[in-house]
């Protein structure tokens, strides 16, 4: 039997996670994220205007400046901007998580297989990922979502269908560098099958790389998804997508700057938090591949 090192590993992990809190920038990122998550999860209880999400108009309250009643003002149809923003956080976080859940396992399996088996499996997977990386992610996602149709669901499908490529690429590189390591040879000599080697010997050694990449990607997916909303391809009003809200205010910058400005800032803080955390995790694990 191969000796199990799990308990050691988890103790080590806990120690490293504690070290994460020594870096002030990471702590800042975690704090911002904590606030945003609380706002998103408890959104309906944190605003008196939860009824204004979705189709709603009240022109008598349109273009109100930021005040105590409306901290971020109201928009061109009289909705409370702060309410739109905290519900927008929900959408951004939801999309980012769903996209990763939908794309990472697929990409990881393909990448490990390509790196482990080599030969024609490698060639096919490499060429296919080449094609999906032949355009910047935003543009590829725009094309797919533009063709599929104007809804949040189509944005998610578009993002999943391109996102697995990076994970396939990363796992391919990692697997190739690891598959001739002595401990993998040892497992093979002891009669471990291909599946066991790929997913019990090689994959656990890629967890830190994957963790860093996924943390940074949460920010990156939100950036791209909001960009799609901003361009009017993907989610459309009255979906409270942050990019959509920003776009809806650009026509009124001269008179009601708050409609665009506050959602933009909120969006920047959200992405910033993931980048700060991601960089902290990267330094912690000393990962180079990403």
């Amino acid at each position, binding site marked *: 039997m191969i000796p199990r090192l799990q308990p050691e590993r988890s103790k080590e992990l806990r120690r490293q996670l504690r070290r994460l809190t020594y870096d002030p*920038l990471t702590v800042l990122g975690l704090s911002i994220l904590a606030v945003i998550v609380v706002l998103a999860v408890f959104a309906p209880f944190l605003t008196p205007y939860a009824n204004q999400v979705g189709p709603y108009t009240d022109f008598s309250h349109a273009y109100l400046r930021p005040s105590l009643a409306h901290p971020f003002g109201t928009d061109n149809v009289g909705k409370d901007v702060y309410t739109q923003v905290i519900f927008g956080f929900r959408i951004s976080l939801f999309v980012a998580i769903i996209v990763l859940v939908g794309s990472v396992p697929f990409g990881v399996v393909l990448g490990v297989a390509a790196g482990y088996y080599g030969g024609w499996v490698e060639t096919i997977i490499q*060429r*296919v990922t*080449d*094609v999906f990386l*032949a*355009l*910047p*992610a*935003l*543009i590829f996602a*725009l*094309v*797919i979502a*533009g*063709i*599929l149709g104007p809804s949040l669901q189509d944005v998610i499908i578009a993002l999943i269908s391109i996102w697995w490529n990076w994970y396939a690429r990363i796992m391919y590189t990692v697997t190739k560098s690891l598959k001739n390591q002595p401990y993998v040879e040892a497992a093979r000599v002891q009669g471990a099958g291909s599946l066991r080697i790929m997913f019990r010997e090689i994959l656990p050694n890629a967890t830190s790389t994957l963790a860093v990449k996924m943390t940074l990607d949460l*920010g990156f997916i939100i*950036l791209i998804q*909001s*960009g799609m909303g*901003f*361009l*009017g*391809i993907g989610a459309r009003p009255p979906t409270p997508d942050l*990019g959509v809200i*920003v776009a809806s205010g*650009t026509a009124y*910058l*001269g008179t009601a*700057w708050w409609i*665009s*400005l506050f959602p*933009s*800032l909120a*969006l*920047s803080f959200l*992405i*910033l938090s*993931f*980048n*700060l955390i991601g*960089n902290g995790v990267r330094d912690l694990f000393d990962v180079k591949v990403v």
Partner: protein
Amino acid sequence: MRFAEFVARRVLLAIVTLVGLSIIIFYLSRILPSNPGRLALGPFATAGQVAHYDHLLGIDRPLYIQYFLYVWNFLNGNWGLSLLSHHNVLSDVEYYFPGTFELITISIIATALIGVPLGVVAAAYRGRRTSALIRILWICGIAIPPFTIGIALQLMFGYFTNLLPITSQLSGPAPAHITGMYFVDSLLTANFPALVDSFKHLLLPEVALSLAGIGQIAQLTYAGMLDQTQEDYYLALKAFGAPSYPLNFRYALRTAMVPVLTVLGLLYASLIANAFLVEIVFAWGGLSQYAVAAMQNNDFNVIVATVLVIGVFYVTLNSLIDIGLGYIDPRIRLGEAK
């Protein structure tokens, strides 16, 4: 692997990739039940007229035949008509591309000219505080969406103060047409008023487009310079009393530049995506704005053509970077041979 062989392989791979991309984009744009004939002719055309138009477009034929016809036509400069404006797509792209090309090219030059010195200066004043500053600049640059920066700039310099123009590429008359890039054309024709005009229009979009890259390049230069000062050769030369100027600039900076140049190349290619966002904010009227309008309206000839143009730009640049790296570092070429 010999260098020529390496280059040939790269070029071949790029072509295979572009063929794959064209197949995916073409099938995607045709596979959904949209109704191009109806879109082009409007709600008052009869069913017969729509069917006739569809026949003219060739969309009643099998998809793979349509694809081969499309590629044949594309390579022969016949990119079809826009379903909405009925303009020739090729001449539209020729009209819109220079504005975007100018925007991203000036941006990458500015990124290099500001980012690299910033990193060098930071390395000279290295320390915990400098590290933190550079890091914050880098992370914020990546985190803030370009359209947010654009909107903030518009508010500051347009709506609140009226210092700079915040839309389009020019206010006054255009310079004589040479390249289609207004700044370059006004330089070439020594047209001073147009030069100032286009410069003013370029400023804000360029800032919105370049901030992220400047932070990234500064951080990379800074980290690279610091790494070099830990290397044995550096410490040895320093111990022998080598003067710091050539030591830092002839040796350390030069070695630190390899990853910086690579990232500059990758940035240049990916700027075209951020240009999509910045162009919309500033109503720039370039290729991106043209493509976005097409995507919003399912104008498939325009979508396929613009995406392929962007794909060619992106893949060519990425291949050139690979070839450049293979030229500098033979280990990369040998790695491919295995």
